[in-house]
């Protein structure tokens, strides 16, 4: 085994070449249970464990995760009687690997709770500036040609605590967990709009959900005809109720709120409908108090998921820094990592499959010798956009910002190994 001192250092404070990830295991001391029986030579004896001596339960109709991973939860807060069904829950990014979020851990944001929709009683209506208004049943939509695509979904308000004056004591989940990735399967919206026949004067598509808030958003027609889906499946199974069952709009790369869940109406209009959630909310007020409206794409961004906030590094030695990167405008082409607060950077390894508007996982080895460290990641996308520093983002957006925070975030590591959100 190569000694850590022989590894190629590529940036300050212990970052090692990503090439070492290929073919080399990261050593982690295997600790035997303290109750282990010792052999005559004083070394622990390996025994056959109890679960290898008795048959377990047989096949089941619906799979469950291990009781040992049941602690991985979304952070749904307490219900608020003044906001029935409202609120959000975040994905536990620090516990997940790869780029696909399990459906049961995909983040949620509801404005009036999850409607109990019987698909047999659900309609998707297309009306407004079309040659022929149409209604589609769920059953009929299942007959249409579908496509499957990997996409991220990120709430526009994700990571917004980084706009705050002081760094909050968060985890990857509480700061960045309004982010998930999935394979979405659905009907290109253009197929259904073409069937209704788009009139020349139509410029926008107003999408409305069947929840109690009848959440509405206006989508520009050119985007609607580009890559928007009426999604029916997520990671191979019909949508979960909290993700819009039986159908949702899926607007790739754009702020999550516009991917209207429980989709029941698409109205073609000349002007945007100016819904509450595209005027009062989901607009960006600049320093001069002008508010930018319809700022749809989520910017180029990355987050280190491990090591991350509230973790403790318990040993010196080799670690794998890993995280996810994504951009609403294209494909992630590069992720750099710094261990010294942005003074020096090294290129991380990207997992082989990179899809546009989807999560990309990155990894880089890091040797921690017990010195304080400041871990940061910086993504670049196929348009050439580079994730901005927090200082640069605040300078551009002013102090009134709330949405679209794609700033580089820093995890500070103390000499004791405590990892905390930090500003540099």
């Amino acid at each position, binding site marked *: 085994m190569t000694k850590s001192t022989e590894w190629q250092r590529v940036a300050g404070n212990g970052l090692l070449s990503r090439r070492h990830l290929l073919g080399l295991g990261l050593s982690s001391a295997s600790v035997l249970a303290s109750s282990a029986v010792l052999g005559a030579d004083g070394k622990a004896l390996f025994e056959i464990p109890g679960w290898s001596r008795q048959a377990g339960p047989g096949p089941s109709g619906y799979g469950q995760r291990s009781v040992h991973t049941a602690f991985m939860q979304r952070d749904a807060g307490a219900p608020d009687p003044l906001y029935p069904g409202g609120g959000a829950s975040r994905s536990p990014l620090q516990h997940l690997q790869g780029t696909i979020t399990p459906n049961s851990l995909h983040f949620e944001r509801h404005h009036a709770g999850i409607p109990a929709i019987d698909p047999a009683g659900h309609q998707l209506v297309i009306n407004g500036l079309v040659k022929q208004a149409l209604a589609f049943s769920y059953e009929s939509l299942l007959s249409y040609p579908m496509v499957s695509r990997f996409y991220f979904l990120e709430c526009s308000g994700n990571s917004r605590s980084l706009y705050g004056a002081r760094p909050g004591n968060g985890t990857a989940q509480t700061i960045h967990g309004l982010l998930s990735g999935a394979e979405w399967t659905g009907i290109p919206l253009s197929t259904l709009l073409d069937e209704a026949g788009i009139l020349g004067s139509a410029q926008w598509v107003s999408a409305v959900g069947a929840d109690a808030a009848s959440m509405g958003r206006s989508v520009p027609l050119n985007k609607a005809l580009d890559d928007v889906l009426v999604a029916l499946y997520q990671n191979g199974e019909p949508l979960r109720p909290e993700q819009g069952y039986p159908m949702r709009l899926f607007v790739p790369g754009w702020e999550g709120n516009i991917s209207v869940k429980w989709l029941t109406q698409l109205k073609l209009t000349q002007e945007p409908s100016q819904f509450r959630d595209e*005027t009062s909310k989901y607009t960006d007020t600049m320093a001069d108090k002008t508010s930018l409206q319809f700022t749809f794409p989520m910017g180029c961004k990355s987050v280190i998921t491990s090591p991350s906030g509230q973790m403790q590094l318990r040993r010196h030695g080799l670690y794998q820094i890993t995280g996810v990167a994504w951009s609403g405008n294209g494909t992630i082409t590069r992720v750099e990592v710094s261990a010294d607060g942005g003074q020096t950077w090294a290129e991380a390894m990207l997992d082989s499959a990179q899809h546009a508007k989807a999560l990309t996982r990155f990894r880089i080895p890091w040797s921690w010798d017990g010195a304080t460290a400041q871990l940061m990641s910086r993504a670049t996308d196929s348009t050439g956009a580079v994730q901005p520093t927090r200082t640069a983002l605040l300078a551009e957006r002013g102090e009134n910002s709330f949405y679209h925070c794609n700033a580089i975030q820093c995890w500070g590591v103390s000499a004791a190994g405590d990892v905390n959100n930090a500003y540099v």
Partner: protein
Amino acid sequence: MPMSKPGYVLLAFVASCLLSSTALSQTVGLGTPIEQTQLQNFDLIAGPDGEGLPDGSGTALQGKLVFESRCQACHGANGEGTGSSTILVGGNMQTEASPLKTVGSFWPHATTLFDYIRRAMPANAPKSLSNTEVYQVVAYVLYLNGIINQYAVLNKDSLLTIQMPNKDGFLDRSHIQ
């Protein structure tokens, strides 16, 4: 060069493939044709051009009663809110450095107020108000914000004449995608 017979056959085959592929690219066609009149209770969109605003009318004086019985528990007696997400009055985009954003200080269109209250409020019983009650309570929220007086009659025409204080405060960035 004159085309041989097999050439014609091939051409006919290519032509029939083209024809059938045209047929395939046509739509599945399972949407049921409907009329806009069938959607009068279903299509709740009230746009800034007034399309979709229903008949009915109301004043703030009438809306006060609706507000007290249906809104006040969550939004406070005078719209001051019971938490940060339920504040309906106050704020000033010009004078405050970090402005409080409310219907009065921030919203660019009065039609949005009708559209939103009709579809989503009261949060504990959405869509339980009549169109007349919605006009009344819209008038009251505008009155609480000093935008109209308590006798002004709101209906689908007069709502379009309301000048919201921050109506010029927005820049449409939808062309930057």
